[in-house]
């Protein structure tokens, strides 16, 4: 950890002027792609993410088919221009991992047994990254999934919390993520409160962990309203 970087200002606010429990501004738009079955575009602070859903559709090769349920195939990828230093395009260790955890989170809400032998393809493309892209991607993907009309238990909402300068804060920005002490991305099913994704980077004491968890969960309910609003706006506009 770089102790030189000052992450909290004198007045107690964060570098970008947010309070410790304040989200970055979020903008969601559903149904932005014509050829996809469902899609969503999301801006979360300076994160810019596009999610597209194709399916349920026939799965090839056939040996991958599951005769009992649909499989969910998720691909998270970052554009080469999404970060200040060019990212080498293509799958790497990090995006493979993120694809896996996002795919599994989404699978937990989809009624996969209604579509045996098929696949639901989820594509998440990050155009601009500024910390918290996995929660942004998951939030967008869940809106896109609802837009595609895939039967599901509920929407999924995701948000991260973390620790900077020994203070637990919500929704880390790029600097806070890099120079902070911990990052805790989480995703929940807002209707039941079930946790479908949780990862942690860094160290938190049990008390800090509980605080961060509660903060992230509370923020998820705010984001949930934005997701619903984005979906309803799509049809109200027509």
């Amino acid at each position: 950890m770089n102790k030189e970087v000052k992450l909290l200002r004198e007045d107690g606010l964060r570098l970008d002027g947010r309070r410790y429990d304040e989200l970055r501004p979020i903008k969601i738009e559903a149904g932005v792609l014509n050829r996809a079955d469902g899609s969503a575009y999301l801006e979360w602070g300076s994160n810019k993410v596009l999610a597209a859903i194709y399916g349920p559709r026939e799965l090839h090769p056939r040996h991958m088919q599951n005769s009992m349920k649909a499989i969910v195939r998720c691909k998270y990828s970052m554009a080469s221009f999404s970060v200040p230093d060019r990212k080498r395009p293509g799958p790497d260790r990090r995006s493979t991992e993120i694809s896996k955890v996002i795919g599994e989170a989404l699978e937990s809400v989809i009624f996969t047994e209604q579509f045996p032998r098929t696949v639901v393809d989820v594509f998440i493309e990050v155009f601009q990254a500024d910390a918290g892209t996995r929660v942004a991607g998951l939030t967008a993907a869940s809106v896109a999934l609802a837009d595609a009309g895939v039967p599901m238990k509920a929407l999924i909402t995701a948000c991260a919390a973390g620790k900077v300068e020994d203070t637990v804060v919500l929704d880390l920005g790029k600097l806070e993520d890099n120079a902070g002490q911990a990052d805790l991305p989480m995703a929940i099913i807002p209707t039941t409160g079930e946790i479908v994704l949780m990862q942690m980077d860094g160290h938190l004491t049990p008390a800090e962990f509980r605080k961060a968890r509660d903060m992230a969960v509370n923020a998820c309910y705010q984001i949930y309203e934005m997701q619903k609003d984005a979906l309803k706006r799509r049809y109200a506009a027509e």
Partner: protein
Amino acid sequence: MENEKNVSTRVLVTPGELLSEGGLKAGKNTYWQGNKIYASQMGFKSITANYVNVTPLSGRYIPRPNDLVVGVIMSVNPTTWLVDINSPYPAPLHVTEVPWRVDFGETSRFLNTGDTILAKVFIVDEIKRVQVTMKDHGSRRLTGGQIIEISPTKVPRVIGKGGSMISMIKQKTMCRLFVGQNGRIWIDGDPENIRLAVNAVRFIERESHRFGLTEAVEKYLTKPPSLKEGDNQIAPEIKSLSGDVNEGKQLREIAPEEEATTMDEPEQDTKGEEKAPPDDAEGDASQEEVPLTTEKSGEEEAEKSDEEDLEEQEKTIVEEPYERIGDQ
């Protein structure tokens, strides 16, 4: 009347939204947990005969037995054809399921890759293996004409209550139309008229959630020449067969006045909707050149698909809760 009430208080719900806390039963596109019912898809909430349903706004076509579908032959084997029915599941059509006597290996003489057929879903088993049949009244090979694709969830709107919408389009455009439950619509007729029918269908797709749709479409079709100008201009787009959203927007720009009238008026006289169509439908059958079977299949289908049709609703609903139990 009752339907109308449901329609006017229509609520848009998203997946996971609470629909009912007891008293009602879980209908289409819903699921229950404890004694609460939630939506499993995004759509409009409706209540019919003790069941809470969600009328979806999007989604793929999942075949169900006895659905009439417009299929395209994907490949030919010595004893079967593989038919693309616009669903995640390709459907084999066996030689014993066609109305012709086909010798082994002679399949391609009857139907070849790319041919279009009107077929019926014969069997769907528990792992969604689908078979289609053409041994059915009205099943046939479709020659000429053209196919457009719409969202399968909008099919009931295109058919209308008891087939009112579809027979009205047939009458006004003098086209032959088959609407498959899979969201494929086959249209044949005069090129000019086809264009009109395609526009009408796109109009329905766009405005599917509004009241007095049948009247609106009727007005849309009985258009003065000014609309025809507009049609000519957008003609190239329609040829592309793809469901291009821009079509409608262009039309709107070209004929803003007509659009305005259709938007306003139907809302005042929605009541007429229910009375008028049945007469219309009967009138058609005799006037049109369309063979009787055509009319019949269209209507049969219409009854099946119209979700506002109460009797049918009950029939289909009975099975639904059991399926849902399996989901849990």
